[in-house]
């Protein structure tokens, strides 16, 4: 990694769009995001509406087919996309906040605080994190449900599990971000402009937020792009095991779990697996490609 400060320089966008992989990824992500947010309004089919037409293969009325309970798979996949993207993006934002804060403080203060924080990161790396996430989500869910039931007549109660997933995943996925931000701050803080700021009498907080943070945007954006797919994978992993998003809500993980169960040698309902799997893999691939391309474009 370059020792000089990397930030979002003006030419970045142009350099990024020159790469076909990055351009393609951006287009795919835009398409997925657009269809997840707006397509349900045009379709008008309810993802929870059951019907007697179970296991209908893809056809004109149901482009993705229907599932075990006769629900339209297209509508379900789009609902899954909404929830998976929501968890992925907000979870990554939570991890961004924690990781950047820890990394900046550790790198800037140095000494004992630094050693302590980095030991904490080491320990958390060694602990099976998903196991802690599962445990934490089980303990906190009932409490949050209780809290939400009093709020606005309980209309948000179904979202408690999702909120917990976001928090728990965000609180566990910040480790790499913290390490990288710390490394950057360590090299940045020796540069003359930081000393100049100190000499001009600026406080530590001001130096951290006004002078160091803007120079960190590059690495932060790169690792944010790479954390989103990681969080989405974790979420779908938990949902696949039945420990994440709960029915009747759907995420890509729960849809894939249904699809995997529907595979059998007698009659394989391939569409139940095929459509959610393709959409999810495409999204994750695009995010990873974009992150890689951003990193390359920044170090150019």
């Amino acid at each position, binding site marked *: 990694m370059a020792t000089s400060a990397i930030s979002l320089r003006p030419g970045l966008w142009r350099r990024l769009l020159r790469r076909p992989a990055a351009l393609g990824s951006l287009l795919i992500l835009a398409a997925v995001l657009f269809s997840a947010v707006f397509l349900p309004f045009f379709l008008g089919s309810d993802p929870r509406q059951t019907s007697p037409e179970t296991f209908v293969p893809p056809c004109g009325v149901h482009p993705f087919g229907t599932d075990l309970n006769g629900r339209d798979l297209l509508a379900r996949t789009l609902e899954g996309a909404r929830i998976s993207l929501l968890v992925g993006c907000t979870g990554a934002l939570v991890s961004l906040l924690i990781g950047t804060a820890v990394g900046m403080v550790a790198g800037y203060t140095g000494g004992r605080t630094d050693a302590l924080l980095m030991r904490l990161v080491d*320990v958390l*790396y*060694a*602990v*099976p*994190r*998903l*196991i*802690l996430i*599962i*445990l*934490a989500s*089980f*303990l906190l869910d*009932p409490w949050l449900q209780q809290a939400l039931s009093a709020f606005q007549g309980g209309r948000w109660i179904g979202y408690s599990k999702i909120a917990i997933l976001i928090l728990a995943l965000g609180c566990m996925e910040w480790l790499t971000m913290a390490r990288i931000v710390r490394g950057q701050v360590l090299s940045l803080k020796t540069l003359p402009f930081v000393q100049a700021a100190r000499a001009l009498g600026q406080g530590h907080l001001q130096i951290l937020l006004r002078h160091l943070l803007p120079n960190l945007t590059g690495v932060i954006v790169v690792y944010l792009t790479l954390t989103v*797919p990681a969080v989405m*994978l974790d979420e*779908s*992993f938990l949902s*696949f*095991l*039945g*420990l994440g998003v709960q029915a009747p809500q759907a995420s890509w*993980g729960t849809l*894939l*779990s249904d*699809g*995997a169960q529907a*595979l059998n*040698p007698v009659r*394989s309902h*391939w569409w139940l*697996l095929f459509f959610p*799997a393709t959409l*999810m*893999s495409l999204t*994750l*691939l695009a*995010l*990873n*490609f974009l992150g*890689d391309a951003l990193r390359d474009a920044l170090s150019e």
Partner: protein
Amino acid sequence: MLAFLARRLTAMCGVLFCVLTLTFLLLRLSPGGPFTRERKLPAVIEQQLLAKYRLDGPLWQQYVDYLADVARGDLRLSTKYRDRPVRELLAQSLPVSALLGGTAFLLAVSSGIWLGSIAAIRRGTLADTGSMFLALGLISVPTFVTGPVLVLLFALHLGWLPAGGWNSPVSLLLPALALAGPATASIARLTRTSLLETLEAPFLRTARAKGVSEGRVLYLHALKIALLPVVSYLGPLAANLLTGSIVVESIFNLPGTGSFFVNAILNRDVFLLGGVVLVYCVLLVGMNLLVDLAYSWLDPRIRLES
């Protein structure tokens, strides 16, 4: 060296203690007990069951009791699989999981290093872009997609391999492949980056100038140094394989430890969960220790101090 080992083992006990405490408290504090059923048990019977498994009385008392038992090597009885010792359940399921994890580990390390070296040596060629595209694909497609696809292809469509269950070593092949996928990709990417950096090092030019053959330069001199980041990744890799095996075991119906982990949480089976988590932590922390030792052995400049 001995002092290093001693310090690491103490730290390991600390981690185990913390994780066990968290597991026990979180599971006991979460609503629903091990004997909560759809049909409610009479209060007297539930009380007696709790007393039998020493889950009555104040929470701290239960916790201290349990910890003392674990320290003595007694993992207690499972509350779900009635009256079977946790130790016995683990002894039955661990070999399956270990075999699966071990196969996937070897598969991932060998094919990952191979793929990464090819990409680095033939930088910029079709082999490079192709293998790196494959790697990114393997990272992005989760195991619970590759698993069913492999089943569909090799078991249901072609009929070459069993779709699941635990009958012969052959039945381990598909699950190990699915499990190794993402890990292979991470190792390939790491190897490529690191080998590209190493290939520009002056000591390789020296070796070439002295007439060392190109093969020896690449595979003996360069790869040995280039593999250091890969070695340090083996710790997190073990963690990934471990959590991944939970899903893979459920897809392929393997009687491994992963299913116990999920079921123990759903059934509030405190002692079984404690046992599984303990085994997982020992594996992970032990793996990290091994990695550190291997690291200092590969690169003598690194001292085992901190």
